[in-house]
């Protein structure tokens, strides 16, 4: 029996009127059908063979509720509707195998094959009764349904002798296909509307009852049960055995399909201007498409949520809880959020059905990130809503390039396109780029005193614990941006980004500026253990006792000079020590040495006891009282170090000329 026969012309018996009636929105039935066809030769009373062939069909069913045909009683009253189903994207896969062995000759027939295909539903319907005194209730209780499915699997037959010699092979097409032909619920007749027949608008109960009398009970593989929906599902199984020539053929069918309404809706994008800040929230809205006219309960799932330590790079303890959570106060009644164990997600549901719902999400980290999806439950089924921008979820915050940095920050900072781990700060330009903090870290930010700051991915930045407490003097002239932090805002090793995690550029230290180093009484300042980057300099010392007798200019100069050493800046040149012309021992300034170059540079020595001029001779000389307040950008000498070589008042000028090192700003290195 071919499936095509299903186009039973039974409909022709009914006075159809060709009026279409489209459902308000697409309604689908989805699920699985498994059909196993077994042919047992021993049971066929066939004297020539033994063996079993089996074909297994797996169907991923998808039907569409296409039309509704009113069923009217003789008085013209609509007492029910036949909801007609058509295939809408089903697919199937199948495999067949088996061996039959002849009894009289040493031969066997082997079956093999596998395949897949689409559309399987030949016909189907669900009856919905609409009247308590439905005249068809004896044969058609509400929810009654019938399905007719079919698929053909092309197979290979191979005759072999018992010694394995192939006697004959018949390819697919030469032999009948293995067939999945299932008629469910066909105690009632399967009547068809097959998609080509003009769509009837109505059928009368009398005609339908007559149709029902045309039972297909004779069809050997029909499901003999009357099927009705259970809990809204098409669910069941049957086993049918063939008779007569098909004795030995068994069909076992199980199916489970559920109705899926065509529920669609949207989840709005996060406010593009929102970025995570500790304990600040953002509200997102999801809605069922308004044209559907249905309500449902909403479920929001936060997932892929970050778990950075603390809440900023240098604050918030070392906890690694979820960085985004549902806020305690929600715009409408909601369930308590659930955190599935071992996940980075949280789920919350609205308590009441509505056409839309909003959810408030709070950030627990300045670098928090995650994704949000929204679903709605209608008639017991969850439907995923379309997320803004396509796909099934949105990022929180807005993060089109999925690097966990809010896009607005990257765009505002001019680093769109750079990696989250990039550390390319180049202001002020110098010997290397970077300040030790990656883009993500600069974005996530730091606590500075009681303030949170997000730093610049372009500007070199330095954190200083200023125990000396008298400010950073002229150090701002270096071009490095400084932040004066609390003692607890770097760790015992002075690492500032001690809560680093995602996309870090590594540990970066801050500087300790202190007046407590036991410095020699006459030394204004010193760095320990040596000139270097903040990662190498243990402490920057200012002699507070000396500074008590110094001018504010001198103090500001001294602080900047020592901080300069702590960002790798060297002196303008060397100096000598000793006596000059029989005087006391002291520092001797040398040509191109420590006092040379730009006199306004904090790294230049302003004083020495003596100087050795371009003529190679040593002179006792009192340097003018000058304290630089800049970081020089060239080696050129200025003031007493500038001009042509000449003699003034018996002294060679310029005093020390251009510097040997110089260009102090360019030497700045933070890592």
């Amino acid at each position: 029996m071919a499936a095509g026969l299903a186009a039973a012309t039974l409909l022709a018996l009914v006075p159809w009127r060709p009026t279409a009636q489209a459902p308000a929105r697409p309604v689908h039935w989805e699920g699985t059908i498994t059909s196993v066809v077994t042919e047992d030769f021993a049971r066929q009373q066939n004297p020539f063979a033994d063996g079993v062939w089996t074909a297994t069909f797996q169907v991923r069913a998808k039907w569409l509720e296409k039309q509704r045909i009113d069923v009217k009683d003789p008085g013209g009253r609509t007492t029910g509707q036949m909801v007609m189903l058509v295939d809408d994207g089903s697919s199937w896969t199948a495999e067949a195998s088996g061996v039959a062995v002849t009894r009289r000759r040493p031969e066997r027939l082997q079956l093999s094959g596998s395949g897949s295909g689409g559309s399987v539903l030949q016909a189907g319907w669900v009856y919905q009764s609409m009247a308590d005194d439905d005249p068809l209730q004896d044969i058609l209780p509400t929810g009654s349904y019938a399905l007719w499915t079919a698929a053909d699997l092309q197979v290979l037959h191979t005759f072999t002798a018992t010694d394995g010699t192939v006697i004959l092979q018949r390819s697919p097409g030469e032999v009948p296909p293995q067939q999945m032909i299932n008629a469910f619920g066909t105690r009632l007749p399967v009547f068809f509307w097959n998609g080509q027949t003009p769509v009837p608008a109505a059928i009368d109960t009398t005609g339908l009852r007559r149709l029902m009398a045309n039972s297909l009970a004779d069809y050997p593989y029909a499901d003999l049960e009357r099927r009705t929906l259970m809990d809204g599902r098409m669910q069941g199984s049957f086993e049918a055995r063939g008779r007569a020539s098909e004795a030995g053929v068994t069909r076992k069918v199980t199916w489970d399909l559920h109705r899926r309404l065509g529920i669609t809706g949207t989840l709005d994008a996060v406010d593009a201007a929102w970025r995570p800040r500790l304990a600040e929230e953002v509200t997102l809205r999801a809605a069922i498409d308004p044209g559907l006219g249905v309500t449902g309960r909403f479920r929001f799932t936060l997932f892929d949520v970050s778990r950075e330590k603390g809440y900023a790079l240098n604050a918030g303890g070392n906890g690694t809880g979820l960085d985004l959570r549902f806020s305690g106060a929600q715009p409408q009644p909601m369930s308590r959020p659930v955190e599935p164990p071992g996940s980075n997600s949280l789920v919350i549901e609205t308590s009441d059905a509505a056409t839309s719902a909003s959810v408030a999400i709070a950030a627990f980290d300045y670098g928090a990130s995650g994704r949000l999806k929204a679903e709605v439950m209608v008639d017991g089924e969850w439907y995923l809503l379309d997320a803004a921008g396509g796909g099934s979820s949105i990022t929180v915050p807005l993060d089109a390039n999925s690097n966990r940095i809010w896009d607005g920050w990257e765009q505002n900072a001019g680093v769109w396109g750079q990696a989250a781990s990039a550390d390319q700060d180049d202001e002020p330009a110098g010997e290397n780029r970077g300040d030790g903090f990656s883009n993500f870290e600069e974005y996530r930010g730091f606590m500075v005193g009681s303030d949170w700051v997000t730093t610049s991915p372009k500007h070199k930045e330095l954190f200083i614990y200023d125990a000396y407490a008298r400010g950073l003097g002229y150090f701002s002239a270096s071009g490095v941006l400084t932040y004066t932090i609390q003692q607890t805002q770097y760790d015992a090793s002075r690492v500032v980004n001690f809560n680093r995690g995602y996309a870090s550029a590594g540990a970066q230290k801050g500087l300790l500026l202190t007046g407590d180093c036991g410095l020699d009484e006459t030394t204004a300042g010193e760095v320990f253990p040596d000139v270097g980057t903040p990662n190498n300099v243990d402490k920057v010392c200012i002699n507070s006792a000396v500074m008590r007798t110094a001018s504010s200019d001198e103090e500001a100069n001294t602080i900047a000079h020592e901080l300069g050493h702590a960002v790798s800046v060297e002196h303008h040149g060397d100096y000598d020590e000793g006596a000059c012309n029989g005087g006391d021992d002291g520092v001797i300034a040398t040509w191109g040495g420590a006092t040379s170059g730009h006199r306004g540079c904090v790294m230049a020595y302003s004083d020495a006891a003596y100087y050795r001029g371009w003529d190679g001779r040593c002179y006792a000389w009192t340097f003018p009282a000058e304290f630089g307040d800049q970081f020089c950008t060239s080696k050129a000498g200025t003031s007493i170090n500038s001009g042509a070589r000449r003699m003034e008042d018996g002294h060679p000028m310029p005093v020390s000329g251009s510097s040997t090192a110089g260009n102090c700003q360019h030497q700045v290195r933070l890592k």
Partner: protein
Amino acid sequence: MKRPGIYGLALAGLLVVSVAAWWYVSRPAGRVDLGGGVEPVQQAEPAQPVEPLMARLAIETGAPGDEALGIVSLFDGRLRNRITAEGALVSFSRSQLDAGIRVEFERPDGAATAGPAVSVVRAPEGTPIRMEASTTLEVWIVMTTLPPAGQRVRVSLPVSGRSVTTDWVMMPALPGAPADQLAARARLQQMREADTLAATADALVALAPLDARGYYYRGLALESRGDRAGAIAAYEAALERTPNNRREPPSALYRRLAGLRRAP
């Protein structure tokens, strides 16, 4: 203002408290109730103390048996960090300071316990004071009972009607060598007692004639008395005895010397 009593006995070590103060910002707006959702999973969240001013403490010690000086420095960190443009308005009440200032010791578990009583010897005057980026206000206190070396110490004090607390500072070890003891004492004296400084400097020169420090402090003492020629001679003697080959030269000495030589 001179308080001879405090330095009466062989110059108590001075405990210099240096308090730097920051004004704290109020919390950002738009905060929400976080109580509802999930348990705050192992995440110690907002625990930052919110105080208006920040303070730093520096401890200066002298010889064993001396008192110590603490300098509490107060500054507006938000101004220095360019977070705000207008500095805080700070006011001091000497009577409230005297009554409310406290020294605290850190216990091994991190808690604070009360330390010994202290006296305020210097405090800002003329209130209220508008903080500027460069402003550092100091409150000096003197401790007669010193914590053991290594003990972490902090000071809390009433400023502008609220309590401000310094960061923790470790109590330094007292010097052992006699010359170092005298130098430490001189260092404290030069900060506020120039006339007693002279005697200590002379003692240090007598004890250690090759040590530059005695001459340097003698120069400071003479300079403060207006003895320019004597000061120059003392500084030159110090320079002669200053060790070579350090990264930074004795620039403080040059500057004093150059300043005196330039003076009419």
